[in-house]
């Protein structure tokens, strides 16, 4: 069975600080990987995705993620966070149509 672990439950940063959120997945085969974001009061929405090819993928709002196969990792990064990035972030893997989510990381950005 797939599993996804996110290392940080709650991260607090000041504006302009750099962000890295860890994500590891368990399945050793071919999976598609995702980061979803949930802003306060809104539904989950896609931030970025990796299917194949270039392991460094770029998403919306300046976010990027790097797929490292040897480490089963798909960490999310942003060089300079903004107050509006305050949200909950979920990493997910998909195999054979079934997506498995991590427990999420709550990011609070202080103005």
């Amino acid at each position: 069975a797939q599993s996804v672990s996110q290392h940080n439950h709650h991260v607090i940063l000041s504006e302009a600080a750099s962000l890295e959120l860890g994500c590891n997945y368990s399945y050793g085969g071919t999976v598609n990987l995702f980061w979803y974001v949930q802003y306060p009061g809104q539904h989950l929405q896609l931030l970025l995705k990796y299917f194949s090819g270039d392991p460094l993928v770029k998403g919306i709002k300046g976010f990027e993620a790097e797929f490292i196969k040897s480490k089963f990792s798909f960490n999310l990064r942003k060089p300079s966070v903004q107050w509006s990035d305050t949200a909950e972030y979920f990493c997910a893997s998909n195999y054979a149509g079934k997506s498995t989510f991590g427990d999420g990381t709550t990011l609070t950005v202080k103005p």
Partner: protein
Amino acid sequence: GAGVSQTPSNKVTEKGKYVELRCDPISGHTALYWYRQSLGQGPEFLIYFQGTGAADDSGLPNDRFFAVRPEGSVSTLKIQRTERGDSAVYLCASSSGTDTGELFFGEGSRLTVL
């Protein structure tokens, strides 16, 4: 709108009652998913449909939970003899296919069992 629609947005019921939660996916999306999210946790897979059939129902916790999608569009999640532990946000998502796994989520239905 063109997004995934879920009703009701909130449902309060008493222990032992029957509940139905409805999901209207994005038009043309063939795959539909149900997830359950408890406080402080990520979405937990329940079931997904490809067309009218349940392609994977391995996440349904027990036989009190059942879901249908009779015409390949709208889906209903049915919970019999509700228990307090069923309290959660039930999320529906749709996808244009299962190849990629990119999901489009609704706002969720918050179920509270007293």
